[in-house]
């Protein structure tokens, strides 16, 4: 990293490289109507892209350093802000890793409740990604429909956890609330409505000859390339690799449920868009099965005994509904969490979030703050595809490729 010989100061954030005579440098920058909070530096030769360099880091919020100074329970709302659309999926591996260190496992009803919220979040996140993809291609109808239908599921999540987007639902030992009495029929109506709407999406967007000619054979990623680059999520399953954490390494209640994983062989942008629509269909089936199970089994404890027995009598009264103004089946924060000390050790947990596989590494040395938390989000592992996949395509294929990867810059930068 020495200064270059021509006397220009070489700061490491700035790369000086030789441009060949015929290329033209275009910045798809942070203040662009079609980019989001990131910058892509593109060198174009005529209409073909020659070199693409993703320049990220505009929304970096230093979550790993902040986590070393806060208590264990306070890190749950911190990590949620990474991608507030799928809040349950993002904080679940952290809670699982700390539970492994503590040695407590949640009861069965809590596992099914966590699964239910995870699937609702997965559908909301896929609808967001599909909508944004539509507006990059100039198709505003799909954008409005996807965001309108997302309201149905955000409303279900609000009935379950009390907040539309930042749920903070899984805690150590279980969950925070149980479902209300009139939840199952609302959930069934929502899944019936959404199945019809998915057929409409296929008609207006995926089978529209205009859009098909823009997406077919664009950004083709073969199986070997996808494995080498370490791509995750529906992008990987659209290239022919059959890998999903819910099947290969089951967690929560996924081991008892039966569902399918859609895998496509072509690996182009159209296959990635289809993979998301098919996954939404499977998630609707899972929601139906989980709601049936929750209705059939009697309401029992949803928090581990070790924490529940330290609760004062007021909490137990609120739980059974004897206090009138406070609602039913909910508990407040256990006083034990405020000064929780976790025994020393190292743990690792992984979960299939909406956009791919989410990974946490937690290390503790016996105090009440973590020693080191390392978080790798799925969108961060997909950034490398911009550098290796895009050269060779035309400039107008840039939104078609990066929209199909379901970009979300706050998740990259953490």
């Amino acid at each position, binding site marked *: 990293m020495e200064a270059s010989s021509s006397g220009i100061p070489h700061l490491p954030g700035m790369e000086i490289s030789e441009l060949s005579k015929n290329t033209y440098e275009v910045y798809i920058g942070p203040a662009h109507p079609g980019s989001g909070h990131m910058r892509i530096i593109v060198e174009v030769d005529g209409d073909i892209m020659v070199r693409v360099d993703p320049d990220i880091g505009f929304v970096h919020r230093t979550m790993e350093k902040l986590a070393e100074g806060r208590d264990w329970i306070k890190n749950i709302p911190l990590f949620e802000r990474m991608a507030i659309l799928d809040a349950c999926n993002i904080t679940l591996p952290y809670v699982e890793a700390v539970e492994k260190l503590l040695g407590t496992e949640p009861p069965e009803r809590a596992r099914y409740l966590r699964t239910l919220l995870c699937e609702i979040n997965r559908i909301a996140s896929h609808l967001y990604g599909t909508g944004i993809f539509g507006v990059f291609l100039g198709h505003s*109808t799909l954008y409005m429909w996807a965001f309108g239908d997302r309201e149905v599921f955000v409303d279900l999540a609000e009935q379950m956890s009390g907040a539309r987007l930042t749920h903070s639902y899984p805690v150590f030992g279980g969950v925070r609330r149980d479902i209300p009495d009139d939840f199952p029929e609302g959930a069934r109506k929502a899944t019936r409505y959404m199945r019809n709407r998915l057929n409409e999406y296929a008609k207006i967007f995926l089978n529209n000859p205009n859009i098909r000619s823009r997406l077919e054979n664009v950004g083709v990623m073969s199986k070997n390339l996808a494995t080498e680059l370490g791509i995750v999520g529906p992008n990987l399953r659209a290239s022919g690799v059959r890998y999903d954490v819910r099947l290969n390494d089951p967690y929560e209640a996924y081991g008892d449920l039966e569902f399918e994983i859609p895998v496509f062989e072509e690996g182009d942008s159209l296959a990635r868009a289809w993979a998301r629509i098919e996954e939404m269909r499977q998630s609707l089936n899972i929601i139906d099965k989980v709601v049936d199970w929750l209705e059939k089994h009697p309401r029992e404890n949803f928090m581990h005994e070790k924490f529940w027995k330290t609760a004062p009598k007021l909490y137990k009264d609120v739980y059974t509904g004897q206090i009138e103004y406070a609602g039913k089946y909910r508990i407040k924060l256990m006083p034990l969490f405020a000064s929780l000390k976790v025994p020393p050790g190292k743990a690792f947990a992984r979960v299939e979030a909406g956009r791919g596989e989410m990974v946490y590494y937690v290390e503790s040395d016996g105090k009440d703050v973590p020693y080191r938390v390392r978080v790798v989000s799925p969108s961060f592992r997909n950034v490398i595809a911009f550098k290796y996949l895009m050269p060779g395509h035309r*400039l107008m294929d840039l939104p078609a490729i990066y929209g199909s990867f379901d970009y979300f810059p706050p998740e990259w930068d953490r």
Partner: protein
Amino acid sequence: MNVWYLVYRVIIDDIIFYPPVYQYLIIPGLIAALLVALFIIWFERKAAAFVQMRYGPREIAPRIGGAIQLVADLTRYALQEIIIPETVDALPYILSPIVMIILALLPLEAVPLTSIRTYFPIPPDYSLLIAVALSTLSPLFVVLMSWASNNKFAVVGGIRESFIITAYELIAVLGFLSAAAMTQSFNIVNIVNMQMSGKWLGLLNPIALLAVFIAVLMSTSGFPFEIPDSESELVAGPYTEYTGLLYGLNMGGGYIKRWVFSILIALVFLGGWAPYKPVPGIITGYFIPSLIVSIKALIVMAIMSFLRSVYGRYRVDQALGIAWEILIPLTLAAFGLGLAEAYFGVI
């Protein structure tokens, strides 16, 4: 002479209803074009909103459905400060949008809107050829605009515009001239008189109508067919550096060009002022036929606006591929069909 007679002769007969002035400024000229642009942008937003499960504009005048939303938008553009950056070439930068709008309305000077002799703006013997030739002047100023802006996005947008205009205006010109092949004259009055008995040229030669419709959609930038102006890769193409009233002129300029082409389509393919036979006199001989032509053109524009909610945007090389490989042979076939119909005496 009577004072009122003098008023009638001078103001109304010589100034307002003098054909070149009437056609360039009143109907279907500047005032009608502005009113139609106001109406059609509101209609486009409402129709798209109806398909997309939402309401559309309803803040300004809720009881009539927000119809005067565009008046508020225009007022805001007119009162906003015009910022001229230092790095642009100032004279072409300021003049190009203005000249573009002036030249876009020029074909209206060449078309007759009635069959009564005293109301022709120019001798109508070659009016179709002159009108079509004048309509190809304004896109040059878009390319000039992109060069004067001195911005990478503008230059890429200008290059795309020049490719697309070359291909699609050729299709529009050939499509209009197939009407000349069918009726064996360039005189628009003869063309409309031949359609008086119900034989509209659009029904006899639908291929030409389809080709001209697609060409007009692609060459006048309206979402989502505006490839030079596409928002996801290039910020606004050639129009990036504009603010204030110049920006309003640019955005409205697309709709004004579309209006002029729609008037030509209504006269040539959809029957003009048929089935009404003009009688000498100002109101019955000039005003009513021009209103009929305007209403037909408005229907054509409304159909073009509705397509906003169904289609996405094509890539540049795919759009050019469609133009040169599919539409030009189709237009030549339409020309041949017109010649065949004239030979066999269908019309």
